[in-house]
């Protein structure tokens, strides 16, 4: 009996009430309930707080005493000239990141898989992961130094090749910004993102390659006919996640790299816009409305992408 009580074995048909059972495992519940209260406060209260998008939030009245204004802030956001600019930047930056940033780690994993020297492979991997662990501030420092007009390495290289006669101020020219942003993102995350694909490739049955090689398929054919089809499910899952993230065009990277206000026309995306309007300009309700709009579109996109993927035979849930 004592043992059963300690192990909380519930006998079939025993009439121990829910509450008694709960009290008996108080030490176990004590490990979970405080965390639930914590999650309620720090995750669920802000979710409820999103309703401030329908208020005129007053700093001194707080959420409870601010007047309700319906869709006012949504209308203001949709009718503002900023809306189209922000949406265009969000979509363009996202699509550029998808087109270049998404295939890059797959290519890297495929290339690493072809390397025969274990040492070389390990060194390249170690080097390629490193930037993932650096703060965006530090990456920003590197980019600023590389592209600097004051003897930055890129300008020195371009000038020694006679491609430009005087240093280009890369971070103040709107035309270059998207390229710099996407390139820096790839520099930082490509190696790390390749890990998952490398693991998927490592899981492929080696007999498939042997058979293909006996049939006369070269390495290139083998990649095309064995490796890629075998890691297809992983690629699709990451594709779905990427589509769900399409409105997450970037945040930290843009805040760090686009410090020059000249770039605002090309650098403002929804998230940075919410930050600027809300935190810097104190237009809390307006910013919350823009944020909520983004969240709703994101969830819808994720659901749609998953539906499409289910038709192709894989799904997130």
């Amino acid at each position, binding site marked *: 009996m004592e043992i059963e009580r300690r*192990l909380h074995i519930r006998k079939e048909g025993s009439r121990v009430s829910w509450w008694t059972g709960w009290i008996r*495992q108080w*030490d176990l519940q004590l490990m*979970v309930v405080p*965390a639930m209260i914590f999650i309620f406060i720090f995750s669920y209260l802000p979710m409820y707080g999103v309703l401030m998008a329908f208020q005129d939030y007053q700093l001194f009245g707080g959420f409870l005493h601010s007047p309700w204004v319906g869709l006012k802030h949504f209308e203001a956001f949709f009718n503002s000239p900023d809306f189209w600019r922000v949406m265009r930047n969000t979509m363009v930056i996202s699509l550029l990141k998808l087109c270049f940033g998404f295939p890059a780690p797959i290519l890297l994993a495929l290339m690493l898989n072809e390397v025969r020297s274990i040492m070389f492979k390990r060194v390249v991997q170690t080097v390629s992961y490193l930037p993932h662990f650096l703060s965006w501030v530090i990456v920003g420092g*590197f980019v600023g130094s590389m592209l600097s007009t004051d*003897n930055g390495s890129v300008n020195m290289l371009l000038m020694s090749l006679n491609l430009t006669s005087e240093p280009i101020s890369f971070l103040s020219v709107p035309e270059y910004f998207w390229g710099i942003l996407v390139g820096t993102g790839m520099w930082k995350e490509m190696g790390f993102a390749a890990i998952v694909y490398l693991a998927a490739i490592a899981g492929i049955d080696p007999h498939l390659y042997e058979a293909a*090689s006996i049939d006369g398929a070269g390495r290139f054919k083998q990649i095309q006919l064995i490796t890629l089809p075998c890691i297809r499910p992983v690629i699709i899952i990451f594709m779905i996640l990427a589509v769900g993230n399409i409105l997450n065009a970037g945040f930290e990277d843009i805040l760090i790299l686009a410090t020059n206000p000249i770039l605002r026309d090309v650098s403002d995306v929804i998230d940075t816009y919410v930050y600027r309007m809300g935190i810097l300009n104190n237009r809390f309700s307006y910013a919350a409305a823009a944020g909520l709009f983004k969240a709703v579109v994101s969830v819808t996109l994720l659901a749609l992408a998953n539906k499409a993927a289910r038709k192709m035979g894989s799904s997130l849930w």
Partner: protein
Amino acid sequence: MKLSTGDKVLQLFIYIVLILLGFVTLYPFWNSLVISFNMGSDTSLGGITFWPRVPTFDNYEVVFQDSRIGQAFMISILRTLTGTILSVLFTAILAYGLSRHELIGRRFYMVFCIITMYFSGGLIPTFLLLREFGMMDTFWVLVIPGLISVYNMIIFRTFFLGLPAGLAESARIDGCNHIGVLIRIVLPISGPVVATLSLFTAVYHWNDWFSASIYINDPSLIPIQTLLKQILNSNIVTDQLQSVGNAAAQDRLALVQSVTTKSLIMATTMVATLPIIMVYPFLQKYFVKGVLIGSLKE
């Protein structure tokens, strides 16, 4: 196995691309390191690439003399230590609770947690909530909101569920309560997963600059990354140079004149990067495993 000509070309191509890639990845880091060790006034003449021309520690001397940088460094260390220890501990406690099959309400609790992975209030409501709690300009605003990580909880829980059930049961029969089982039995045999999640959490805390930039105005509570961001964004450094010049004795003046904004920024950047480089070998050992456990859940 003999390689065909086509395969050899492919191999050559891959080696060249990977070497280039490695170079491009390392060069910015190396170049910044070189600039941080080169005399500032010499760097501004140009041509510094792979090796310092006039090696010096002056830049670092100025950085270490600056009390704000030292203070910010301490805040970062303090926040990384408390944030990591508390977060990993509380997350492990929750994960252990949720890994027990007899927990009443287990499904509800799990769903309650997982919902927060897909939905969040967003930046503005979270900001205003913490503000209404009076957490602005406190050290704890850097630590408390991240105490429980649902993502890490799931990794912990998956690991705990994979442990042999008999271990915990025998301790329970010997009269140990759940907290005892977690601390005396489960955590000691969970070394790898504790290490992985601690390293990830520590890297997050060390690298985070954004939360301090919105929640903290008090200069004495700013962590190093946020300070570095401020330095990169403005001309704070020039003031700093002047203040060093005024405060320090005359013999410092020569030193200050040779140090430039750029060389100082690079030295500060290196100081802020150093801890990451120091833990990187350990990170390397554990994170591949961590990433894979994480992605299985996706």
